[in-house]
């Protein structure tokens, strides 16, 4: 504070831009570190410690269990459908919202946020009300032999609903800040709509898109509440990894539960590592885009 009153030649200017004392900084960093350590890191560590408590053999054995294998397969399948669907729909919705003016835009924005603000359990219940035997579409679906709820399609739909905002929420602010002029420029230069989309718009948002997709994927694999409502919990058929973790835990199979939990956590961590690695590999390009 006192420093700023004095006139100093530029070369003698304080190295730090802020004027907080060292103590304040240590305190702030300490609080943040402690918080992340206890809230985030410790539980994560517990998962891996608990999983390996009895050594590696029981872990490998628990992955031999056909129900667990089917849960892993189902989770990957659900993510493989839900994430691309959300990437495409999220991209389209963000584009519409960021680049065009239309009636009902605010409503659409609110709707996109809705899955964030309502409990996933409610998202699941909504699907039961819609597709359940006594739901609006239930009788028609069952008379045509189409299974949605308590089957894989219901799980996929619930996951799509819950994870929808991740891509759109990453893209909308970025697209809004980038404006429409680059796309307009591309169009005036004679580019077709698709060419503009793939060569101008997509590259401009690819990092946000990637980040949204990774978050969406982590959440899609980890979704519990909504999936629990629509799954029907049929062993080996409609249990995803999170549901299988609960089942194993309830069966007092703690090693098995923590082994699957560790795998799930590892998959989530892997996506984040992949993101960091990509960022590191393309650091230069990324900086160039941001500075503009």
């Amino acid at each position, binding site marked *: 504070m006192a420093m700023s009153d004095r006139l100093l030649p530029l070369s003698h200017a304080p190295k730090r831009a802020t004027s907080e004392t060292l103590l304040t900084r240590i305190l702030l960093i300490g609080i943040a570190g402690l918080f992340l350590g206890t809230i985030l890191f410790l539980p994560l560590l517990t998962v891996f410690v608990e999983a390996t408590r009895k050594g590696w053999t029981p872990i490998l054995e628990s992955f031999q269990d056909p129900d667990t294998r089917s849960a892993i397969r189902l989770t990957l399948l659900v993510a493989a459908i839900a994430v691309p669907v959300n990437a495409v729909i999220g991209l389209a919705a963000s584009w519409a919202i960021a680049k065009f003016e239309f009636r009902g835009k605010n409503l659409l924005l609110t709707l996109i946020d809705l899955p964030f603000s309502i409990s996933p359990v409610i998202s699941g219940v909504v699907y039961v009300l819609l597709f359940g035997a006594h739901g609006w579409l239930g009788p028609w679906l069952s008379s045509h032999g189409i299974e949605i709820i308590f089957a894989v399609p219901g799980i996929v739909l619930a996951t799509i609903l819950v994870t929808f905002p991740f891509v759109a929420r990453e893209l909308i602010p970025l697209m809004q800040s980038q404006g429409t*002029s*680059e796309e*307009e*420029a*591309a*169009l*005036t*230069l*004679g*580019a*077709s709509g698709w*060419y503009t989309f793939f*060569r*101008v718009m997509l*590259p*401009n948002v690819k990092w946000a898109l990637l980040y949204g997709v990774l978050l969406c994927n982590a959440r899609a694999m980890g979704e519990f509440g909504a999936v629990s409502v629509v799954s029907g919990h049929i062993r080996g058929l409609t249990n995803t990894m999170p549901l299988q973790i609960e089942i194993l835990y309830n069966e007092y199979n703690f090693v098995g539960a923590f082994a699957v939990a560790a795998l799930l956590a590892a998959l989530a961590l892997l996506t984040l590592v992949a993101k960091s690695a990509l960022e590191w590999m393309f650091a230069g*390009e990324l*900086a*160039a*885009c941001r*500075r*503009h």
Partner: protein
Amino acid sequence: MSVPVRVRDVEKSYGRYPALKGVTLNIAAGELVALLGPSGSGKTTLLRAVAGLERPDSGNVFFGDLDANGLSLRERRIGFVFQHYALFRHMTVFGNIAFGLRARPRSTRPSEASIKAKVLELMRLVQLDGLENRYPAQLSGGQRQRVALARALAIEPRVLLLDEPFGALDARVRKDLRKWLKDLHRRTGHTTLFVTHDQDEAFELADRIAILNNGVIEQVGTAAEILATPATPFISGFIEGISMAASPRERQALLRPVAVQ
């Protein structure tokens, strides 16, 4: 190459707010015309309507004998320079300038070799030799503006449209670029329409000036004509700054191009 541009009774409103209330303007082939006016006067809307970025509610735009209303943006072949350049941030300078050529359908797309030759030629024209591998973020404002211009010229446009081309630059760079643009126009001879809110810029650069206010053109004429006989009280007020601010010698300089013609 250059064609005359005729704007006939163009109207455009946004919701209930009328931006253009029936504008008619004729621009001769190779002419450099400034659209001048306060903000909200409709000058940018007019420019975008000529470009095809806005669809007029009524009225026509002709490029030569061609009614542009029926043409797609690609078919219009206009060179548009945006106020904030709108360079493709993830492409190099070379990529930016080559964009319009590479985006052509395969049948009309030039070979990579001729694209390269063309881009390098344009880079020489806008004095950016050697910067082809830079990204826009690594350029100064003036350099970016010149990349934007080269990119627009690459598609050999019928008409060159510039939206506040120097609006985001500092005063010194602006002065340099003005002179340079005038020079470039003389060499390439494109029919050029540019938007500005800066009276000095308009009066120094343009062959003719169209002054807009509230969605209508209040007066069109050469700098000398407008200074000598302002058509409306608004024009008198609007150009007052010029007569007052410019020193006699500067005004002399300012009037010279007109006098030469």
